[in-house]
C-alpha cells in the first residue's frame, strides 16, 4: 500500500494479531493496525463487526484472547483500564457515558483525579495542601471548560444537557485526562448533517489544539470520508480493506460487503435533484 506513512516513524499504537473470543465466537479475529503520531484514522464496518470490541480491548476493558497491543512501545497486556488511561489513551462511548447526576464541572474534575496531588488524609483533614490543590484543580477544570465554551454551564447536571452538548462534554472530559491518543466511538451517532458538520470542525480543532492522534469509529460515510486520512474496514471481526478514503470508496470488496452500489447511485440522484434547485 503506497499510502502508508513513513515506516521509519515510531508508531503511536500498534496492534498485531489481535483476537477476542466470547464463548467460542470470534468478535475480533487477527486484527492488525498501526497508527502514527498525529494521524486521524477511521475504523468502519457494519454493526457487530467488532469495532467497539477493539476499543474495549485497547482500553483494557476486555482482555484479548491473543495478540499484542502496543502503545508507544509499551505492551498494554495486563494493564488495568485506569492505568491505560493514565498512560495517555482516552475514549468516548457509542452511547454517551457521562456521570449523569453530577454537574458539568464535576464531570471534568473527575478526569483530573489522577493528578489531584493530595491524599485522602489531606482531604479528610481539609488542610492547606487540600485547599491549594483543590483550588488549582478546580481552576484548571474551569479553564478547560471555557475552551469548550461550557464554563457558564458548570453547575448544570450532566443528564439535563441537550444531546449535542452531552457529546461535547464527553469529548471535553476525555481530553481533560490529557491523552495523546483519543478514541472516538461513533461521535456523530444521532446527529443531523448540520450538527455533524460542527462535530467535524470540533474534531479538527481539538486535534490541532491538543496535538492529538485520533482513532474514530463511525457509520456516517460523510464523516469518515471527510476527515480521516486512513481508513480500515472491518467485517465479521476481520479487516477487509484499508487505505485512503479514495481507495476505500472504490474497493470492490468494500462495495460488496459494506457500501453497496445503490447507495452511491441514490446520493448521485439526490445531488442531481439539488443542483436543479440551485
Amino acid at each position, binding site marked *: 500500500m503506497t499510502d502508508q506513512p513513513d515506516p521509519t516513524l515510531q508508531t503511536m499504537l500498534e496492534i498485531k494479531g489481535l483476537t477476542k473470543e466470547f464463548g467460542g465466537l470470534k468478535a475480533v479475529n487477527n486484527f492488525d493496525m498501526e497508527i502514527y503520531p498525529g494521524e486521524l484514522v477511521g475504523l468502519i464496518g457494519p454493526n457487530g463487526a467488532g469495532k467497539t470490541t477493539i476499543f474495549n480491548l485497547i482500553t483494557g476493558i476486555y482482555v484479548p484472547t491473543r495478540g499484542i497491543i502496543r502503545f508507544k512501545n509499551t505492551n498494554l497486556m495486563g494493564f488495568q483500564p485506569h492505568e491505560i488511561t493514565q498512560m495517555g489513551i482516552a475514549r468516548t*462511548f457509542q452511547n454517551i457515558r457521562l456521570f449523569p*447526576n453530577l454537574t458539568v464541572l464535576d464531570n471534568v474534575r473527575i478526569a483530573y483525579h489522577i493528578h489531584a496531588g493530595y491524599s485522602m488524609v489531606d*482531604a479528610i483533614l481539609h488542610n492547606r495542601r*487540600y485547599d491549594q490543590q483543590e483550588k488549582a484543580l478546580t481552576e484548571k477544570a474551569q479553564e478547560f471548560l*471555557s475552551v469548550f465554551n461550557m464554563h457558564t454551564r*458548570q453547575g448544570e447536571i450532566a443528564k439535563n444537557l441537550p444531546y449535542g*452538548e452531552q457529546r461535547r462534554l464527553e469529548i471535553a472530559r476525555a481530553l481533560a485526562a490529557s491523552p495523546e491518543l483519543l478514541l472516538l466511538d461513533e461521535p456523530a451517532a444521532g446527529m443531523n448533517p*448540520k450538527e455533524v458538520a460542527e462535530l467535524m470542525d*470540533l474534531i479538527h480543532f481539538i486535534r490541532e489544539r491538543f496535538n492529538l492522534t485520533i482513532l474514530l469509529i463511525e457509520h456516517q460515510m460523510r464523516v469518515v470520508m471527510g476527515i480521516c486520512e486512513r481508513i480500515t474496514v472491518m467485517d465479521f471481526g476481520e479487516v477487509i480493506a484499508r487505505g485512503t478514503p479514495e481507495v476505500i470508496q472504490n474497493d470492490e470488496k468494500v462495495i460488496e460487503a459494506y457500501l453497496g452500489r445503490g447507495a452511491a447511485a441514490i446520493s448521485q440522484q439526490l445531488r442531481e435533484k439539488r443542483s436543479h434547485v440551485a
Partner: protein
Amino acid sequence: MKIQRSTLAFWVPFIGLLVLVQVLSSVGILSNFWVTLLKIGAVMSIICLGLNLIYGFNGQFSLGQWGFYAIGAYAGADITYRWTQLHSASGLVVVLLVVLLVALAFILVSKLMSRLRGLDTLSGFTLYIIGLLMAAVIAIFIGRYLINPITNLLNLLPLNIASQIVFFFAVLLGGGVAAEVSYIFGFPVLTLGSDYFGIATLGFSIIVKVLLDNSDTLLGFEEMKGARGMIGIPKMTSWIWVSIFLVIVIIVTRNLLHSTHGRAIISVREDEIAAKAMGINISQQKTITFVLGSFFAGLAGALYAHVNGFLHPNTFSFIKTFDPMIIIVFGGLGSVTGTVAAAFTWALVLEGLLRLVLPQGFETWRYVIYPLLLLVLMLLRPQGLFGTFEFPYLRQILPPIFQPRNSAKPTETVNEIPGDGA
C-alpha cells in the same frame, strides 16, 4: 483561617443540641429511657453514614453492615470486659497488636500483588488469608509478653482515666477490626455485580451471627458466652462520647466527599466503565469506601456494646441488617443530613414512641405497624424523606463561574469553538 457562615450555621445549632441533651439529662429532665434511645439514635447514625458511603455514594448494595457492627461490638466489648472484669489489658494489647500487624501484612501482600500482575481474585484472596493468619499468630505470640507490662503501666494511672483510655481504644479497635475484616472479605466480593454483592454481604451478616452464637465454643472466647449473651460489659458509652464520635464521623464523611477522592467514589456509582475510562481505579475506590463504611459500623458497634452493657447474638440477626438500609433509603440516598435525621427518627419512633403509645398487650403490634408505615412512606416518598437535601455546610459549593483573564478572550473562544450553534 476564615470560618464560613454556613459552617457556623451548621455547627452552632448542632453542637448546641448535643450539649442541650447532656444538660437536660444531667439535670434529670430527660429520663434515662430517652437518653438511651438518643444514644442508640446516634449509634445508628454512625452505622448509616457508613452504609450511605457504601451504597448511597459508592453504589455498592451492601447488606453486611450489621455484621461489621456486630464484629465491632464484640471486639470492643471484649477489650473493656477484660479490663474491668479480669483487670487485665490482655484484650487491648492483643487486639491492638493483631490490628497493627494484620494491617502491615495487608500492606505487604498488596505490594506483592501489584508486582504479580494478572493474579486472579481467588489467588489474591488466598494470599491475603495466609498473610492474615501469619500476622495474627505472630501478634498473639508477641502479645503474651506485652500484656503484663502494659497492664501495670495502665494501673499507674488513676483508675477512671485508665478506663476511659481503654474504652477509647476499645471503640477505635472495634472499628479497626471491622475495617480489616471488611478489607479481606471485600477483596474478592467487591468484584461481584451489584445484586450478587448484596447477597454475599447478607451471607456475611449471617455467618457472623452464627459465629457469635458459638463464640464460646467455636471461637474460644469464653467471656462472650455464645448464644447465652455477653453480660458484664461496663456501661461506658456516655452521651458525650457518642456525640464526639458522631461529630467526627460527620466531618470525615463531609470532608471526604468534598474532595477529588469523594468525586472518584461517586463516579463509580454513576458509571463504572466511564470511571475506568477516566483513569479511576474503581476496585480501589470500592475497597476504600467499603472499608471506611465498615470502620464506621465497627465504631458504632463498640459504642453500642457499652450502652446497655449486654450483647446478644440475636441483636445481630440478619433481619436487622435491613434496618440501616431502610434508614438510609428513608433519609434519602446520598444525603448526610437525611441519614442522621432518619436514624434518630427511627430510634425514637420505633423503639420509643411505638412502645409508649401502644397499650399493654399490644406490644406485638409494633412490628405490624412498622412495616405498614414503611410501606406507606415508600409509596408516598420513594426518593426518601429528605431526597438529596443537604444543609449548606454539608452541600458542595460550586465555585464562581470562571472569568477568562483578558476580556477579549471569551468572544474569541466562542468564534474559535465550532459546534456551539445548537
